[in-house]
Protein backbone atom coordinates (compact mmCIF):
# COMPACT_ATOMS: atom_id res chain seq x y z
CA UNK A 1 0.00 0.00 0.00
CA UNK A 2 1.51 3.29 -1.14
CA UNK A 3 0.27 6.22 0.94
CA UNK A 4 0.33 9.56 -0.87
CA UNK A 5 -0.58 12.90 0.71
CA UNK A 6 -1.30 15.78 -1.70
CA UNK A 7 -1.75 19.24 -0.22
CA UNK A 8 -4.21 21.42 -2.11
CA UNK A 9 -5.52 18.23 -3.67
CA UNK A 10 -9.15 19.21 -4.26
CA UNK A 11 -8.49 21.37 -7.32
CA UNK A 12 -6.01 22.19 -10.09
CA UNK A 13 -2.78 20.26 -10.42
CA UNK A 14 -3.34 18.59 -7.04
CA UNK A 15 -6.64 17.16 -8.23
CA UNK A 16 -5.17 16.07 -11.56
CA UNK A 17 -2.32 14.33 -9.76
CA UNK A 18 -4.77 12.50 -7.53
CA UNK A 19 -6.85 11.59 -10.55
CA UNK A 20 -3.78 10.20 -12.35
CA UNK A 21 -2.84 8.13 -9.30
CA UNK A 22 -6.44 6.94 -8.92
CA UNK A 23 -6.47 5.86 -12.59
CA UNK A 24 -3.21 3.94 -12.23
CA UNK A 25 -3.12 0.17 -11.87
CA UNK A 26 -1.12 0.58 -8.65
CA UNK A 27 -3.02 0.55 -5.35
CA UNK A 28 -2.69 3.90 -3.58
CA UNK A 29 -4.12 5.25 -0.39
CA UNK A 30 -4.56 8.86 -1.41
CA UNK A 31 -5.00 11.60 1.15
CA UNK A 32 -6.57 14.62 -0.51
CA UNK A 33 -5.34 17.55 1.55
CA UNK A 34 -7.73 20.48 1.40
CA UNK A 35 -8.52 23.58 3.45
CA UNK A 36 -12.19 22.68 3.13
CA UNK A 37 -13.41 19.15 3.85
CA UNK A 38 -16.62 19.90 1.96
CA UNK A 39 -14.71 20.86 -1.20
CA UNK A 40 -12.55 17.77 -0.85
CA UNK A 41 -15.60 15.54 -0.51
CA UNK A 42 -17.12 17.17 -3.60
CA UNK A 43 -13.88 16.60 -5.48
CA UNK A 44 -13.81 12.96 -4.38
CA UNK A 45 -17.38 12.48 -5.55
CA UNK A 46 -16.41 14.02 -8.89
CA UNK A 47 -13.45 11.65 -9.06
CA UNK A 48 -15.65 8.61 -8.38
CA UNK A 49 -17.98 9.74 -11.15
CA UNK A 50 -15.12 10.25 -13.61
CA UNK A 51 -13.40 6.97 -12.75
CA UNK A 52 -15.80 4.32 -11.58
CA UNK A 53 -13.15 1.65 -10.98
CA UNK A 54 -9.85 1.93 -9.21
CA UNK A 55 -7.34 -0.09 -7.25
CA UNK A 56 -6.94 2.97 -4.98
CA UNK A 57 -8.87 4.74 -2.26
CA UNK A 58 -9.10 8.49 -1.65
CA UNK A 59 -10.06 10.25 1.54
CA UNK A 60 -10.31 13.90 2.53
CA UNK A 61 -7.77 15.34 4.96
CA UNK A 62 -8.36 18.82 6.32
CA UNK A 63 -5.15 20.77 6.11
CA UNK A 64 -4.62 24.50 5.77
CA UNK A 65 -0.89 24.88 5.27
CA UNK A 66 -0.92 28.39 6.74
CA UNK A 67 -2.41 27.10 10.00
CA UNK A 68 -0.04 25.35 12.43
CA UNK A 69 -2.89 23.76 14.40
CA UNK A 70 -4.41 22.41 11.19
CA UNK A 71 -1.07 20.90 10.19
CA UNK A 72 -0.60 19.35 13.64
CA UNK A 73 -4.10 17.89 13.62
CA UNK A 74 -3.61 16.49 10.13
CA UNK A 75 -0.34 14.89 11.22
CA UNK A 76 -2.03 13.25 14.21
CA UNK A 77 -4.89 11.93 12.07
CA UNK A 78 -2.51 10.40 9.55
CA UNK A 79 -0.33 8.97 12.29
CA UNK A 80 -3.26 7.33 14.06
CA UNK A 81 -4.98 6.03 10.96
CA UNK A 82 -2.08 5.04 8.70
CA UNK A 83 1.14 5.36 10.72
CA UNK A 84 3.25 6.66 7.85
CA UNK A 85 3.38 8.67 4.60
CA UNK A 86 5.19 7.23 1.60
CA UNK A 87 4.98 10.23 -0.69
CA UNK A 88 4.35 13.84 0.35
CA UNK A 89 3.39 16.11 -2.53
CA UNK A 90 3.69 19.78 -1.56
CA UNK A 91 1.31 21.13 -4.15
CA UNK A 92 -0.73 23.73 -2.26
CA UNK A 93 0.25 27.18 -3.44
CA UNK A 94 -1.14 30.55 -4.32
CA UNK A 95 -0.88 33.22 -6.94
CA UNK A 96 -2.47 36.44 -5.71
Amino acid at each position, binding site marked *: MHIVLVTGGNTGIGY*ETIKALYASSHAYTILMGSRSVIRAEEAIEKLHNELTQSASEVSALQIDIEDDLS*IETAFEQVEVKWGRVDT*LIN*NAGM*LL
Partner: protein
Amino acid sequence: MKLKNGAIPRIHSFTGAAFDPIMLSKPGPKGIREAWDRAYSVNVASTQVVTHQFIPLLLKSANPRVLFVTSGLSSLATCSAGHTSSTIGASPFKGWPKPNTPGFVAYYSSKTALNMMMLNWKRLLEPDGVKVFCVSPGFLATNLGGVGPELLKKAGATDPADGGSFIRRVVEGNRDEDVGRVINKDGVQPW
Protein backbone atom coordinates in the same frame (compact mmCIF):
# COMPACT_ATOMS: atom_id res chain seq x y z
CA MET B 1 -10.28 39.97 -19.22
CA LYS B 2 -12.10 40.74 -15.99
CA LEU B 3 -10.66 40.22 -12.54
CA LYS B 4 -12.56 39.08 -9.48
CA ASN B 5 -13.50 42.65 -8.45
CA GLY B 6 -14.82 43.41 -11.92
CA ALA B 7 -11.89 45.65 -12.90
CA ILE B 8 -10.63 45.41 -16.45
CA PRO B 9 -6.85 45.79 -16.48
CA ARG B 10 -5.04 47.79 -19.14
CA ILE B 11 -2.94 45.27 -21.01
CA HIS B 12 -0.29 46.88 -23.17
CA SER B 13 1.50 45.17 -26.00
CA PHE B 14 4.83 46.23 -24.49
CA THR B 15 6.13 45.18 -21.09
CA GLY B 16 7.01 46.89 -17.89
CA ALA B 17 6.36 46.53 -14.21
CA ALA B 18 5.34 42.89 -14.12
CA PHE B 19 2.75 42.74 -11.41
CA ASP B 20 0.95 40.07 -9.51
CA PRO B 21 -2.86 40.39 -9.91
CA ILE B 22 -3.55 41.70 -6.37
CA MET B 23 -1.57 44.84 -7.24
CA LEU B 24 -4.30 45.85 -9.68
CA SER B 25 -6.95 46.06 -7.01
CA LYS B 26 -4.43 47.31 -4.42
CA PRO B 27 -1.91 49.57 -6.16
CA GLY B 28 1.23 50.87 -4.47
CA PRO B 29 2.96 49.56 -1.36
CA LYS B 30 -0.13 47.80 0.06
CA GLY B 31 -0.49 45.63 -3.01
CA ILE B 32 3.22 44.97 -3.25
CA ARG B 33 3.38 43.84 0.36
CA GLU B 34 0.32 41.68 0.05
CA ALA B 35 1.54 39.99 -3.12
CA TRP B 36 5.02 39.32 -1.80
CA ASP B 37 4.09 38.48 1.78
CA ARG B 38 1.34 36.09 0.71
CA ALA B 39 3.37 34.43 -2.02
CA TYR B 40 6.17 33.64 0.40
CA SER B 41 3.85 32.83 3.30
CA VAL B 42 1.91 30.22 1.35
CA ASN B 43 4.39 28.93 -1.19
CA VAL B 44 7.54 28.98 0.94
CA ALA B 45 7.11 29.28 4.72
CA SER B 46 3.96 27.16 4.92
CA THR B 47 5.46 24.48 2.69
CA GLN B 48 8.53 24.40 4.91
CA VAL B 49 6.37 23.93 8.01
CA VAL B 50 4.31 21.13 6.46
CA THR B 51 7.41 19.28 5.30
CA HIS B 52 9.12 19.71 8.66
CA GLN B 53 6.08 18.45 10.54
CA PHE B 54 5.53 15.37 8.36
CA ILE B 55 9.13 14.11 8.37
CA PRO B 56 8.52 11.59 11.20
CA LEU B 57 5.80 9.90 9.12
CA LEU B 58 7.97 9.90 6.00
CA LEU B 59 10.80 8.24 7.92
CA LYS B 60 8.43 5.35 8.69
CA SER B 61 8.18 4.57 4.97
CA ALA B 62 10.29 1.96 3.22
CA ASN B 63 10.52 4.12 0.09
CA PRO B 64 9.76 7.75 0.95
CA ARG B 65 9.56 10.64 -1.48
CA VAL B 66 8.93 14.34 -1.11
CA LEU B 67 7.82 16.36 -4.13
CA PHE B 68 7.60 20.14 -4.28
CA VAL B 69 5.43 21.53 -7.09
CA THR B 70 7.27 24.47 -8.62
CA SER B 71 7.06 26.56 -11.77
CA GLY B 72 8.89 26.73 -15.11
CA LEU B 73 9.50 30.41 -14.50
CA SER B 74 11.24 29.75 -11.19
CA SER B 75 14.43 29.16 -13.16
CA LEU B 76 17.00 31.92 -12.72
CA ALA B 77 18.87 30.69 -15.81
CA THR B 78 15.74 30.78 -17.97
CA CYS B 79 14.61 34.20 -16.79
CA SER B 80 18.08 35.77 -16.91
CA ALA B 81 18.39 34.64 -20.51
CA GLY B 82 15.31 36.70 -21.25
CA HIS B 83 12.88 33.82 -21.63
CA THR B 84 10.03 34.85 -19.44
CA SER B 85 6.33 34.15 -19.59
CA SER B 86 4.23 35.01 -22.58
CA THR B 87 2.83 37.82 -20.51
CA ILE B 88 6.17 39.46 -19.74
CA GLY B 89 8.37 39.55 -22.84
CA ALA B 90 11.30 41.87 -23.61
CA SER B 91 12.90 44.87 -21.85
CA PRO B 92 10.72 47.55 -20.35
CA PHE B 93 10.48 51.10 -21.57
CA LYS B 94 12.65 53.79 -20.02
CA GLY B 95 11.09 55.98 -17.32
CA TRP B 96 8.77 55.66 -14.36
CA PRO B 97 6.10 54.53 -13.72
CA LYS B 98 6.41 51.57 -16.03
CA PRO B 99 3.32 50.46 -17.89
CA ASN B 100 1.60 47.65 -16.04
CA THR B 101 1.48 44.15 -17.48
CA PRO B 102 0.84 40.87 -15.69
CA GLY B 103 4.05 39.15 -14.71
CA PHE B 104 3.45 37.39 -11.40
CA VAL B 105 6.96 38.22 -10.20
CA ALA B 106 6.22 37.59 -6.52
CA TYR B 107 4.79 34.18 -7.40
CA TYR B 108 7.74 33.15 -9.56
CA SER B 109 10.26 34.48 -7.04
CA SER B 110 8.58 32.45 -4.31
CA LYS B 111 8.93 29.34 -6.45
CA THR B 112 12.65 30.04 -6.89
CA ALA B 113 12.87 30.17 -3.10
CA LEU B 114 10.99 26.85 -3.02
CA ASN B 115 13.65 25.31 -5.30
CA MET B 116 16.31 26.44 -2.83
CA MET B 117 14.28 24.92 0.03
CA MET B 118 14.15 21.61 -1.82
CA LEU B 119 17.95 21.49 -2.06
CA ASN B 120 18.25 21.74 1.70
CA TRP B 121 15.76 18.90 2.22
CA LYS B 122 17.63 16.80 -0.33
CA ARG B 123 20.84 17.29 1.61
CA LEU B 124 19.27 16.67 5.01
CA LEU B 125 17.24 13.61 4.04
CA GLU B 126 19.78 11.85 1.83
CA PRO B 127 21.17 9.75 4.73
CA ASP B 128 17.60 8.62 5.46
CA GLY B 129 16.99 7.50 1.88
CA VAL B 130 14.22 10.03 1.21
CA LYS B 131 14.08 10.98 -2.46
CA VAL B 132 13.40 14.71 -2.87
CA PHE B 133 12.41 16.54 -6.07
CA CYS B 134 10.95 19.72 -7.41
CA VAL B 135 8.40 18.99 -10.13
CA SER B 136 7.64 21.62 -12.73
CA PRO B 137 4.38 20.56 -14.34
CA GLY B 138 4.30 23.19 -17.10
CA PHE B 139 1.90 25.98 -18.00
CA LEU B 140 -1.46 24.35 -17.34
CA ALA B 141 -5.01 25.63 -17.63
CA THR B 142 -6.04 25.58 -13.95
CA ASN B 143 -7.59 28.25 -11.75
CA LEU B 144 -4.22 29.55 -10.54
CA GLY B 145 -4.47 33.32 -10.28
CA GLY B 146 -8.25 33.22 -10.38
CA VAL B 147 -8.61 34.28 -14.01
CA GLY B 148 -9.98 30.91 -15.12
CA PRO B 149 -8.68 28.10 -17.30
CA GLU B 150 -10.19 29.45 -20.52
CA LEU B 151 -8.13 32.61 -20.36
CA LEU B 152 -4.99 30.61 -19.59
CA LYS B 153 -5.69 28.34 -22.57
CA LYS B 154 -5.74 31.42 -24.79
CA ALA B 155 -2.28 32.25 -23.48
CA GLY B 156 -1.07 28.76 -24.41
CA ALA B 157 -1.80 26.73 -21.27
CA THR B 158 -2.30 23.01 -21.84
CA ASP B 159 -4.42 20.28 -20.27
CA PRO B 160 -3.83 19.99 -16.53
CA ALA B 161 -4.15 16.22 -16.88
CA ASP B 162 -0.65 16.28 -18.43
CA GLY B 163 0.69 17.68 -15.17
CA GLY B 164 -1.08 14.97 -13.21
CA SER B 165 0.33 12.13 -15.28
CA PHE B 166 3.85 13.58 -15.12
CA ILE B 167 3.71 13.85 -11.33
CA ARG B 168 2.31 10.33 -11.12
CA ARG B 169 5.37 9.05 -13.01
CA VAL B 170 7.62 10.71 -10.44
CA VAL B 171 5.61 9.13 -7.60
CA GLU B 172 5.96 5.75 -9.28
CA GLY B 173 9.74 6.01 -9.32
CA ASN B 174 10.30 6.77 -13.00
CA ARG B 175 12.51 9.82 -12.32
CA ASP B 176 14.56 8.57 -9.38
CA GLU B 177 17.79 9.28 -11.25
CA ASP B 178 16.91 13.00 -11.04
CA VAL B 179 16.64 13.27 -7.25
CA GLY B 180 17.53 16.73 -5.98
CA ARG B 181 16.69 18.48 -9.23
CA VAL B 182 13.87 20.52 -10.68
CA ILE B 183 12.32 18.21 -13.25
CA ASN B 184 9.68 18.58 -15.94
CA LYS B 185 8.14 16.10 -18.30
CA ASP B 186 10.89 16.67 -20.88
CA GLY B 187 13.89 16.41 -18.54
CA VAL B 188 15.68 18.62 -16.05
CA GLN B 189 14.91 22.31 -15.63
CA PRO B 190 17.96 24.59 -15.33
CA TRP B 191 18.51 26.43 -12.08
